[in-house]
């Protein structure tokens, strides 16, 4: 059984269909890339999995338990961690406090939470910024912080929305290392990314969405040679 | 020469500041007369001599404090006046709710508290030892209104049939409304509807419609200034013409009431404690009012005349006590017995019962005719006959 099973999920906003009948799975310890043109419905799908939207149709299960329609905090408790496309850090706190707050899902004691947070900051190469107020970090720094924060909730599945945007190639490499490390911890990852250099080399599977529908699924190699994907997303370059 | 400090707590800012200012003037006049005398008011105590004779001509010094219509502030100021300013007595505080808390402080400190104008009946039901009130309270005023109606029926054969009440829903209006409801059956009148509304209202349409639907002959009304004016305008707008509007002072006696409404204020009857036309039977009123008018360019109103009288009563007590000891003053206050002729009020006099309430106070009723308040009751003091019924709006010139 796969960790995450998304079955026949549709999501409509008024007249607009953002997701239509999307089905795929994420296995334990897998990195799955979710790609597709702008407006394909990736973030929307994310929001459905993380509980921010209730799907209009379809089911979502985590480890066999239905989670669709649950509020975000319940999803988080069940093991779905996420980052936001626009980093939403707690701006009045330092980086460390941001992560501590997330750690508190398991460690109510502040000193324990701090120790835990410091571990995760180290994990995401952010130790240097631990005491910096999140409000004065650049956007890309905040994204990395958001990853550390999501990890601190000890998710089984981590949803990452474009965490590699705005990084230069060598920074992308660092980020890739972080994702690999996350997998080593036994955490599955569902990654939305336009920076293909960041996702293609490491993904176990790629799911491609276009206009809300799944148009392809397979290994990176399979997907990148798929006609439909090239046409809709990669471009003929 | 000794100075006797008397604390004064009134709303000098905030929504009741307009009244507070008048009261302040009245007190200053009273203190001035006591301290420096005044010509042409032979009946007024202290008007000839200088200061309080029994205290070697000691002068009254007023220490003003602003309570902003806030009960806690009133208590705080009372505390300050007593311990900082070392006042020998306190006069105040207009708003009944503030009088309630401020007098509580005086009670605990053992300082006489003289209240000249708060009308909530409950204030003298507390069995306070140091609290004295010169004005009649709402209970008596409401009784007065019904006595007036009975006498009107007995003497002139006029009987208002259906009665409704309209009152603002604060402390004062509510208490008045309740008393009216309680007393109406005692006097065998039919109270068909009671309507209350928030004083800070922006419109009174639904209130007036509700009244209109009850089709009354008589409206008993308790309103402050803005809402009194608004209600009259709404009556006219909606064509509501009862035979009589018998108002309960406050807004209806505000200087602005007649000025604003002009002709539309005609024929309103309102309870008063004071009227300038009483001077016909009591010249003292005109004499003192002339002094007031000369100094502040305004005439006495029910509020300012009562406050003026309050300080006179207190000064009389301090003088008789011959001492500034609180206990001596309290005893003297309790033994007060001033005759009506020495007051500018239409009262029989001032004499306190065990609760500290003046038992000789009395209200009057005035009717607006020709842009003036004319005393119409008690009939003995009346300067005009009651106009009944009020002409309908569309029949007025």
């Amino acid at each position, binding site marked *: 059984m796969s960790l995450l099973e998304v079955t026949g999920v549709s999501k409509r906003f008024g007249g607009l269909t953002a997701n239509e009948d999307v089905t795929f799975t994420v296995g334990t310890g897998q990195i799955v890339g979710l790609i*597709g043109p*702008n*407006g*394909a419905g990736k973030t929307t799908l994310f929001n459905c999995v993380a509980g921010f939207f209730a799907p209009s149709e379809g089911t979502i299960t985590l480890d066999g338990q239905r989670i669709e329609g649950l509020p975000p905090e319940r999803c988080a408790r069940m093991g779905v961690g996420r980052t936001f496309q626009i980093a939403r850090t707690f701006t009045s706190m330092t980086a460390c406090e941001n992560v501590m707050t997330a750690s508190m899902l398991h460690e109510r004691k502040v000193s324990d939470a701090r120790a835990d947070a410091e571990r995760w900051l180290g994990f995401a190469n952010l130790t240097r910024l631990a005491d910096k107020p999140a409000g004065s970090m650049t*956007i890309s720094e905040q994204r990395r912080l958001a990853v550390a924060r999501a990890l601190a909730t000890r998710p089984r599945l981590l949803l990452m929305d474009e965490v590699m945007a*705005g990084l230069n190639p*060598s920074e992308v490499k660092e980020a890739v290392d972080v994702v690999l490390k996350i997998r080593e911890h036994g955490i599955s990852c569902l990654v939305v990314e336009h920076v*293909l250099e960041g996702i293609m080399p490491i993904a176990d599977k790629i799911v491609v969405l276009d206009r809300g529908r799944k148009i392809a699924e397979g290994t990176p190699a399979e997907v990148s040679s798929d006609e439909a994907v090239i046409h809709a997303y990669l*471009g003929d370059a | 020469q000794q100075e006797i400090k008397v604390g004064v707590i009134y709303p000098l800012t905030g929504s009741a500041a307009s009244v507070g200012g008048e009261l302040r003037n009245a007190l200053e006049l009273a203190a001035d007369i006591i301290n420096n005398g005044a010509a042409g008011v032979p009946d007024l105590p202290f008007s000839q001599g200088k200061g309080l004779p029994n205290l070697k001509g000691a002068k009254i010094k007023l220490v003003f404090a602003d309570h902003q219509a806030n009960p806690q502030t009133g208590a705080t100021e009372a505390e300050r006046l007593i311990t900082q300013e070392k006042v020998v007595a306190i006069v105040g505080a207009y708003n009944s709710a503030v009088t309630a808390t401020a007098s509580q402080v005086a009670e605990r400190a053992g300082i006489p508290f003289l209240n000249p104008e708060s009308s909530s009946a409950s204030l003298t039901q507390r069995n306070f030892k140091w609290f004295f009130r010169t004005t009649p309270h709402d209970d008596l005023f409401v009784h007065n209104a019904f006595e007036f109606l009975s006498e009107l029926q007995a003497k002139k054969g006029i009987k208002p049939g259906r009665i409704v009440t309209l009152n603002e829903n604060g402390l004062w209006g509510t208490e008045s409304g309740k008393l009216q409801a309680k007393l109406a059956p005692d006097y065998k009148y039919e109270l068909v509807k009671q309507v209350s509304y928030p004083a800070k209202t922006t419109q009174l349409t639904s209130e007036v419609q509700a009244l209109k639907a009850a089709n009354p002959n008589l409206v008993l009304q308790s309103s402050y200034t803005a809402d009194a004016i608004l209600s009259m305008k709404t009556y006219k707008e909606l064509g509501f013409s009862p035979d009589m509007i018998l108002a309960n002072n406050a807004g209806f006696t505000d200087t602005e009431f007649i000025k604003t409404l002009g002709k539309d204020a005609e024929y309103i009857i309102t309870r008063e404690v004071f009227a300038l036309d009483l001077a016909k039977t009591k010249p003292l009123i005109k004499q003192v009012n002339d002094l007031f008018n000369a100094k502040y360019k305004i005439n006495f109103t029910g509020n300012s005349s009562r406050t003026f009288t309050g300080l006179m009563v207190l000064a009389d007590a301090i003088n008789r006590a011959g001492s500034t000891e609180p206990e001596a003053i309290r005893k003297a206050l309790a033994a007060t017995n001033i005759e009506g002729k020495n007051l500018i009020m239409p009262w029989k006099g001032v004499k306190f019962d065990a609760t500290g309430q003046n038992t000789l106070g009395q209200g009057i009723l005035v009717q607006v005719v020709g842009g003036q308040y004319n005393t119409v009751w008690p009939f003995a003091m009346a300067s005009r006959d009651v106009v009944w019924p009020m002409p309908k709006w569309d029949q007025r010139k």
Partner: protein
Amino acid sequence: MLEVRNIKVCYDEVLAVSDVTLTVPPGKIIALVGGNGNGKSTTLRAVAGLNPVQAGTITFNGVPVQGVPAHKRVPLGLSLVPEGRRLFPRLTVKRNLELGAYTRADRHEVARGVEEMFALFPILKERHAQLAGTMSGGEQQMLAIARGMMARPKLLMLDEPSWGIAPKFVAKVLEVIQQVNATGVSVLLVEQNLQKALAIAHEGYVIQTGRIVMQGKGADLLHDERIKKAYLGL
């Protein structure tokens, strides 16, 4: 055209840009590259007037502009497509575009400008009545670029325009930038997609901890060993 001389910019007490000097000649594309948090965006913001400079000068077409408020720099021909898009989320796509041309008075011209943008980015035409805030990330980015061009700037500054854009459109965006440049508009480009940016840039500057540390022809920089090692991880 644009001359930035030794500028220094702070956020509160924090020094973000300590010494930046760069030149954008007329009709050229200039790339400004560097790692995260090194002051690229801050430099652009300073040129656009959103952040005051503590020291140094900014000259545009020979006129010193460092004291000129941001909104008065737009009619001079300076336009910035800011980091993070900064659209007007509750206004429609079309109205966002029209606001881009706020300083241009001729309504007719503006309407034509809008049509041009629609031609350039068909998705915007399709969604012209949608509220900008509900568009997908990439759609928003296109709108932001289009809006920036609506002012008909002489110098267009773009802060990471390919950010969050699907690969197919990254090429498209860079193409658009070159097209715009071909019409005589100078471009100052901040971009993480180093290879692509330096490939289209006539000249590039490298910024590190708030100062310019390297400068050269785009292609030269791209082949510079140090750059390869530092930024491309090669």
